[in-house]
């Protein structure tokens, strides 16, 4: 396949959305995979499909099982039960050195006694390729990650960002079916990380390899991934595109983990095909939702509202029946482009609001202890039952 065609194939992932097409055969498949360490369930009955050309992210806090899942793909751990398929082949009992995967380690794991070139060539030597071919492949790969100049350096003579590129080159040069990345940008400082995120995506688009990445950084996952699985306690809480996860979280955990959110607990008091009304002890008004919810009256729900979807007003609105909470500004974070406000509601709970500073102000819009009313569009909130 030519470069152009490869790139086409990848870009299509976002358009074709193979995960929405039941006829597409998944490239990687986890079938009820469980991994126990002693009595501890690191991964608990996970089933997951990943499609060709995806840049898939496993997102979660430390100890959530994301790295174990990745290591099972690489072959460093065997599942306690369940099956893993890569490109239709059952991976049970296949050792790491026979798997069509390569891994980029969190520590990069560059061989300190070898030069950049030797590190990148290492895997190709194991395949017994002719020397001339190895040389071409290595120099092409170093060019791709812009490290040609440093070919003869030893790893300790490189900066963190350069080591990261060498590690990427070393794992990509074998042209694996799946590239596994364990916190690929974790060791870089913030600025370099942001820059490298896009580079990594570009490289992935160029080579078309399926990437599976582990990260604890939701922003990184959102920026880079075609789809994300949010994990907690060895379980996948939700899988979806960054858009789906942010706009349609299925649980309080996902809503909290992906971006920031205000959660208000309440009880369904009235519903219809077109609307639902939720009453909460924490709100001094009822909450109106512009769509039907799954559930019966009297059931507990959580309203999830993103801070940037809440509007603050200083005058008491005329209609305060629905979606209007009054409170006092308790904390202000001025970030330049945005300001964040913590508003202590009269009911006692605190909500977070972010507002863009899209026009230049003579003085700050609100100050501490200002009385404000927080409102939002009836379609802005998600209703969560768990």
């Amino acid at each position, binding site marked *: 396949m030519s470069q152009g065609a490869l790139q086409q194939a990848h870009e299509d992932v976002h358009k074709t959305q193979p995960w929405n097409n039941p006829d597409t055969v998944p490239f990687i498949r986890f079938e009820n995979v469980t991994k126990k360490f002693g009595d501890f369930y690191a991964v608990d009955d996970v089933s997951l499909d990943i499609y060709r050309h995806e840049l898939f992210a496993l997102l979660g806090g430390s100890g959530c099982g994301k790295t174990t899942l990745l290591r099972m793909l*690489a072959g460093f751990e065997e599942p306690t039960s369940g099956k893993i398929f890569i490109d239709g082949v059952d991976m049970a009992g296949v050792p790491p050195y026979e798997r069509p995967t390569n891994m980029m380690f969190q520590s990069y794991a560059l061989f300190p*006694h070898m030069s950049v070139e030797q590190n990148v060539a290492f895997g190709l030597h194991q395949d017994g390729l002719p020397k001339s071919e190895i040389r071409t492949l290595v120099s092409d790969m170093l060019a791709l990650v812009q490290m040609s100049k440093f070919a003869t350096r030893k790893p*300790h003579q490189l900066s963190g960002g350069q080591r990261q590129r060498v590690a990427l080159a070393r794992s990509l040069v074998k042209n694996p079916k799946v590239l596994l990345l364990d916190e690929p940008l974790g060791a870089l400082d913030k600025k370099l990380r942001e820059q490298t995120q896009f580079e990594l995506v570009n490289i992935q688009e160029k080579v078309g390899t399926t990437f599976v990445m582990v990260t604890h950084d939701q922003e990184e996952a959102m920026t880079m991934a075609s789809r994300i699985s949010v994990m907690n306690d060895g379980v996948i809480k939700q899988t979806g595109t960054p858009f789906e996860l942010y706009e349609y979280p299925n649980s309080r955990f996902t809503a909290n983990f992906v971006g920031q959110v205000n959660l208000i607990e309440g009880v369904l008091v009235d519903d219809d095909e077109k609307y639902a009304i939720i009453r909460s002890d924490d709100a001094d008004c009822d909450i109106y939702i512009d769509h039907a919810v799954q559930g019966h009256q009297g059931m507990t729900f959580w309203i999830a509202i993103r801070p940037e979807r809440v509007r603050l007003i200083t005058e008491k609105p005329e209609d305060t029946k629905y979606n209007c909470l009054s409170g006092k500004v308790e904390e202000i974070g001025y970030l330049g482009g945005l300001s964040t406000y913590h508003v202590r509601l009269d009911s006692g709970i605190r909500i977070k609001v972010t507002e863009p500073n899209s026009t230049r102000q003579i003085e700050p819009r609100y100050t501490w202890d200002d009385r404000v009313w927080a409102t939002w569009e009836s379609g802005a909130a998600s209703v969560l039952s768990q």
Partner: protein
Amino acid sequence: MSSDKLTLKQRYDRWMIKHGRVLVIGIPYLWLMLFFLIPFLIVLKISFATAEYAQPPYSSLFTWIDEGVNITINFGNYLFLLSDSLYISAYINSIRIAAISTVITLLIGYPMAYGIARAQGSLRSVLLMLVILPFWTSFLIRVYAWIGILDREGLINALLLNLGIISEPLIMRQTEFAVYIGIVYTYLPFMILPLYSTLEKMDVSLIEAALDLGCKPWKAFVRVTLPLSMPGILAGSLLVFIPSVGEFVIPELLGGPNTLMIGRTLWNEFFANRDWPIASSVAIAMLVFLVVPIMWFQHIQAKQAENGQ
């Protein structure tokens, strides 16, 4: 009064900050100077003297004749070492036995060090403790214990005879074999400990990376673990090799009359022949032999420091 005291203390503190470092480094150097360098120079001096029936039993290098100092340096001892095949073969034998022992120690010590380095936390400290434990008894007693084990009427022979595996006792003591056993047994911890410390520091993900890139476990060991543990291998080998060359107690107690090693030759010259100048030159020659591998090791270490390993 009290302010006076304070300034005295302050003065002391300032002095310590300025010169304390020199003091800390200086004391051990002074110690080495007194108890290593000066005796060494004395031995060096004796090696250039001639044996005499006197007290001390060697000639003086410096004699005062009328107006000046007459210096008599006798290279004869060194020439004698070269001309007498006894010394040459003692040196060669010592180096051979030390080298073979070092290789055996490495072959036994490496897997042990590897196992300890890869063991789980609490088990690891127990295993390390077991390696160090023999140091708690006297070296001499441990070598004597081997006599009891290897002797004609020793433990091994008794066991094998009783089991009917052999009909006549094996001759193990007073052979070169027993010397190897003694050296390998005694110096094994000196091999294991430096190997352990390099292997323990090594990032396990390096081996995983090698496996991931297509190496079978054995090849990953050869291409990654082995080269990265080279500093430990070198340090351990030198710690075993150098003292083994000059070993006296083990060949004396476990070796036979034919086990010719330089340590024993040295002892004979000093105490049996009372030829101090020859004995001293034997000692100096041995030191020169050993300086070469030490310098080589230093060179390699300096190179590795440059490479940042």
